[in-house]
């Protein structure tokens, strides 16, 4: 329940305007972007529908339209607009959309485990191979080996990681579709889907870090290519 700060009446938490006096309501402790935008809690979102709702609500809340209103309403407009913008940004992107779903379904954020060095078990093999290859390339680069050849080796090392990443994107899409079709399913089944989504996100973050590591080495190679070529000529 929200309390209207303009007239004191009570209002349901998903309402934006007071049913009594029709003034804009203070935001309160809202946490559900889907409900805020009037969307079902689903992961496949029609982009044009999301945009339409975003524009519609922007027209209702924006501080531009509350310039002459009372301070209470102005603050509510600023809060609701900010929250709307955050919600739109989070739901527009498929990955942040999943993260938000996990959060409102009560799962710990995948981000909370980001810093831990734990390698997801399914990735152990690739991670081991890649790190070995990266170490080797780094050593050769520092001892002045041919940069072009190293670049080719690095490209080759990237392929399996790229493939894993594509596989993950597909898995995320499949799991998202499964979640959307599980409305009538048991709590345990739904929870299993959420856990699987969370696992995939953790792996995805890890894969992205691996790709970033490859990118860094690419940059180092490019940097050492410049002076190296000069000394030979």
């Amino acid at each position, binding site marked *: 329940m929200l309390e209207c700060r303009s007239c004191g009446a009570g209002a349901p938490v998903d309402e934006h305007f007071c049913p009594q006096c029709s003034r804009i309501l203070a935001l309160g402790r809202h946490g559900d972007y889907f409900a805020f935008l009037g969307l079902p809690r689903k992961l496949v979102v029609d982009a044009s529908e999301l945009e339409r709702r975003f*524009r519609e609500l922007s027209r209702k809340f924006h501080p531009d339209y509350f310039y*002459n209103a009372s301070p209470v309403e102005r603050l509510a407009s*600023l809060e609701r607009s900010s929250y709307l913008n955050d919600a739109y940004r989070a739901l527009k992107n498929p990955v942040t959309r999943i993260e938000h779903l996990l959060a409102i379904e009560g799962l710990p954020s995948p981000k909370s485990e980001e810093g831990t060095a734990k390698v997801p078990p399914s990735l152990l093999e690739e991670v081991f191979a890649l790190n070995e290859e990266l170490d080797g390339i780094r050593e050769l680069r520092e001892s002045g080996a041919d940069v072009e050849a190293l670049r080719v080796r690095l490209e080759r090392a990237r392929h399996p990681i790229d493939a894993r990443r594509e596989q993950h994107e597909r898995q995320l899409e499949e799991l998202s579709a499964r979640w959307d079709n599980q409305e009538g399913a048991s709590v345990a089944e739904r929870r299993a889907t959420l856990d699987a989504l969370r696992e995939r996100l953790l792996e995805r973050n890890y894969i992205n870090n691996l790709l970033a590591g490859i990118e860094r080495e690419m940059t180092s190679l490019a940097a050492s290519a410049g002076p190296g070529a000069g000394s030979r000529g």
Partner: protein
Amino acid sequence: MRGLEPEAVGKVVGIDLGTTNSLVAYVENGRPVVIRDESGDALVPSVVSVGDDGTIFVGREGQRRLLSAPSRSVYSVKRFMGRGIEDVRADAGLLPFSVSGAPGGVVRIGVADREFTPPEISAFVLRELKHRAEEHFRKQGEFDFEVDRAVITVPAYFNDAQRTATRDAGRLAGLEVLRIINEPTAASLAYGLDKRNRGTVAVYDLGGGTFDISILKVEDGVFQVLSTNGDTHLGGDDIDRLMVETVLEEIAGPKEQDAATVEAIRRAVIQAKWDLSDVDETEIRVEPSRWVHGGYRKRITRAEFEHMIRPLVDRTLAPCRQALADAGLEPKDIDEAVLVGGSTRIPLVRRLVEELFGRAPHSELNPDEVVALGAAIQADILVSGRREMLLLDVTPLSLGIETMGGVVSKIIMRNSTIPATGSETFTTGVDNQTAVDIHVLQGERELVVDNRSLARFRLRGIPPMPAGLARVQVQFQIDANGILSVTAHELRTDIEQTIEVKPSYGLTDDEVERMLLDSFEHAEADFAARLLIEERNEAESVILATEKTLRAPGFAEIAERDLAPGEQQRIESALAELKAVLGSDNRDLIHDKTHALNDATKHLAEVAMNRSVQAALSGRNVNEM
């Protein structure tokens, strides 16, 4: 409740506070119009000059004094807004005024024996615009002609400090700043008024000192900025400076620079730059002076000019590509490209924009005026409650805080729609710690040193508890102006924290208050300066009219036939007396002498007028016969 609040009665305007020129506009019967002076000129040069007695001259008069009193005149002050001395050293070289300031603090501009901050200089320009608008409304017969509120535009790529400095300038000029909006977005509003269609628009804004690119999506009257990028240090000024330096190199004269000569060269190259937008070849012409004995003349073709400025213009391309990438778009996705800013008159710039977006850009609206028109529309939206249009802008730079090891942790990403919020939770490192220092930054780089320091503050009043137990949530809010505010509370105890924000490159509220008081003290002098200028203009026009009559071919005949003995001598001595006092700062004296000359010429004027009427009548008679 609403009915009890006092209604504001003053006028509302939109202001384009430019690097080179500034303009003021308002909405009349639903249409935005730019306010012009008697000669039809909409541009007020953003030049401020300080007279020997401390009077302030702004606009055309300030611009004139750039030649006669260069060391007492300030231009392009927008480049110094919200900046520190370390940012602007490179700029200060060729400028006639002195620029100083402590490292890490606000820039100070020294003019004669006075020192100003950039917001104070900008406030003089804003006050001039306010006055221009008030004169306009007064002449229209409006009872409440006072202008007390404004929407002011800034480059989209301005950071928090630059926006705050602009808002401070508005306050110092006695204006309530309803909203700070971005120049390219303002321009899109002005264009969107006629074309009510939907589509994706790129606004390319190359002005006197800054470059912006904004990509917008327009649908259902909502102007949603998808991404923005730019360079707050790239514009027509840089082209001028490049040309001035080239000329200075060729004039192998004494090394010490004479401010008046540099200014004369600057004017000459600007004229040549303008010429080359219309013709293929022109001449840079500097009149002989003490410093450049023979004067300077050089022919320059458009091709040579383009070759010279190409590297500068090319610097706009990377921001354009970044903005497209951030919006997730390809050049082919852009339905319309719009040109804004005086520097887009340069044919090379037009060609590059056309090549980049694959379509001829729009320039139907005057690129100098379109931003002010958009600001006026936004001002009208804010106060009138009209809802057919809505502007949704973004924050141009990511906002972050310093974490361990001098690394920035981003809290609000660039191109987030504003208003936007972000939060971060902090804890304590030692037992019973009651305060945490927080450093807020803006920029895209990983390391603190590569980003813009916005503010440092100390979170106080954390309840004493063992290390790591306190959970202080700091909430960052970027409002619709793109300006940041910070609040915090301790989650375990729910205690609100007091935050003292010390802006790195801005003025504190106390400083603004003090300047406001100062400006009231100076307001009288500034008002006197305006009256003096008006009095001089009046005197000049009487002198001109008198001299014209005295030199007219028929004057000898009139003097002989119609003037009393000694009348001509009385006129000539009154004329000489007025001319003698014209240069003085004594307004009353000029006023009296003007009146004296008016009285002395009253009879002559009547006679001359009768003559011309007769001549006109007889002329017509001749024709009719």
